[in-house]
């Protein structure tokens, strides 16, 4: 069943196309990722899904409803974790949850019970009555996720859920997100951490300049666009000349040569025997290779 359906979705700010005619669909119970460099249009796409940004063209339906005409009904059933933590600094951790529940019209007794459960779930019970300014970055992030779960959403929207967190906090959040998926919740997320996307996302799209470049599962995309293995070596003129002589296809990125291959042993042997042995490594191709290949290595913004 389709939770989100976008058809030729567009968002123009004046003449600038932030989202330039994208089509995708998100199925119930999957984790769907939006990847792309800064300014690719990921956050704008997410904002249109949770009805705070109006589209300028195309179709967008969430739970089968139009985001233009039924924002209240849609927002009642989804949870949002914005890029920037925005807990309410005038209240404690627990009050942040109960006050947020009022915006959904959830009765107080029910809200209090759910708040206790979610503090437990996100491991924040110890900070129940703490003022917000005493919470660490990771705790604030967990609070924002707990807050987004107060209305028991069928769809959870996360804009860079683990940005700026230490590895412990990231692993905890990953575990919780996977647990939510197992409960039948649909998750849509953006991230700049490609290892995160590779671990979590069932399917993802890579965007650039407002358009979707590719769509697929992380494993499919890696196989299709980066091959199985990557052999890297230092980019000395000697090595480059040597590889050309051997007829091996390669790419140069800064001071590194990369060879995509399904036969890394052979390439590594060629490098070791015929060329100079300088910093030769063999590794599995990753989503990061796909990402850089498709969106280029030029710095954004």
């Amino acid at each position, binding site marked *: 069943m389709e939770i989100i359906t976008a058809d030729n979705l567009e968002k123009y*700010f004046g003449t600038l196309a932030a989202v330039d005619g994208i089509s995708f669909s998100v199925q119930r119970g999957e984790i769907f990722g939006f990847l792309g460099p800064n300014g690719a249009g990921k956050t704008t796409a997410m904002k249109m899904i*949770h009805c*705070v*940004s*109006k589209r300028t063209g195309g179709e967008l339906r969430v739970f089968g409803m139009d985001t233009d005409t039924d*924002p*209240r*009904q849609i*927002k*009642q059933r989804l949870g*949002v974790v*914005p890029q*920037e933590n*925005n807990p*309410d*600094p*005038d*209240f404690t951790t627990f*009050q942040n949850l109960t*006050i*947020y529940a*009022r*915006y*959904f*019209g959830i009765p107080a007794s029910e809200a209090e019970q759910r708040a206790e459960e979610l503090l437990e779930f996100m491991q924040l019970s110890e900070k129940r009555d703490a003022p917000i300014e005493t919470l660490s970055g990771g705790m604030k992030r967990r609070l924002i996720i707990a*807050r987004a779960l107060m*209305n028991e959403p069928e769809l959870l929207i996360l804009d860079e859920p683990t940005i700026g967190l230490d590895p412990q906090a990231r692993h905890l959040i990953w575990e919780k997100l996977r647990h939510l998926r197992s409960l039948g919740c649909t998750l849509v997320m953006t991230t700049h951490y490609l290892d995160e996307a590779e671990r979590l996302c069932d399917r993802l799209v890579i965007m650039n300049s407002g358009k979707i470049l590719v769509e697929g599962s992380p494993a499919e995309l890696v196989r299709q666009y980066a091959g199985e293995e990557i052999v890297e070596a230092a980019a000395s003129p000697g090595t480059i000349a040597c590889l050309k002589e051997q007829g091996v296809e390669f790419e140069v990125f800064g001071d590194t040569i990369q060879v995509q291959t399904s036969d890394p042993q052979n390439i590594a042997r060629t490098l070791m025997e015929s060329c100079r042995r300088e910093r030769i490594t063999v590794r599995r191709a990753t989503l990061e290779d796909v990402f850089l290949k498709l969106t280029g290595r030029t710095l954004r913004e």
Partner: protein
Amino acid sequence: MAYGGLSEISRGALAVWRRNLDAFIKTYRVNFIPPFVEPLLYLLALGYGVGALIQDVDGIPYPIFIAPALVSISVMYSAFFECTYSSYVRMYYQKTFDAMIATPLSIEDVICGEILWGATRGTIYAALMIPVLFLFGVIDLPTSLLLIPFAFPAGILFSAIGMCFTAITPSIDALNYPAFLFITPMFLFSGTFFPISILPQALQYFAFGFLPLANVVNVNRAITMAEFSPMLLYNIVWVLLVALLFFIIALNLMKRRLVN
């Protein structure tokens, strides 16, 4: 967008109002200082200090003349500042509005809740000032209790005007312009500390045609003096209509600012 955005307001606005009330109660100690201290200071310095030099105003002792103005000023300041600096902090720095509109609340709910709260705060301050002024013997009870219900529409008026400035201000510092160029002159020239009747005729028309505080002071003074004239009806209708007008303008300006 039917009815200037009014149709987009739901019961959710009360949740926004309640959030602000909860925050106010949480810091009640500091919030309850102004309504007790302000009338005290003004009455001592102006009412009895400056008042000692003045025989009376149209036969009214000076402290009694300024008492209804003090309530009006307090409503204006509390409502206007709540919906300018405080709302701006919630909107821009705390991102509270962003969090709210990610829930079923519409932007109109949020702005309506903020304005209702600004008016409520003004009303609370008016109510708290009444016992202080009564103890000084400058207002009579129970007639002066009518100051409380009128503080609410007056509060809506000043909150809505403030919210319009919040919607268009480029930064929190720029809110000083309306505060100093609009609110402060109004504080001095709205029949607060001297009667409007001593101004040139043209300025009198200007005051009752365009200055919210002049109309509010006139109503409040009629209440504390228990003297009701036909002019009063004009002042009340003016306050209600202009409050509604700025309320609708605030909804639309804020929508333009926050939804893109």
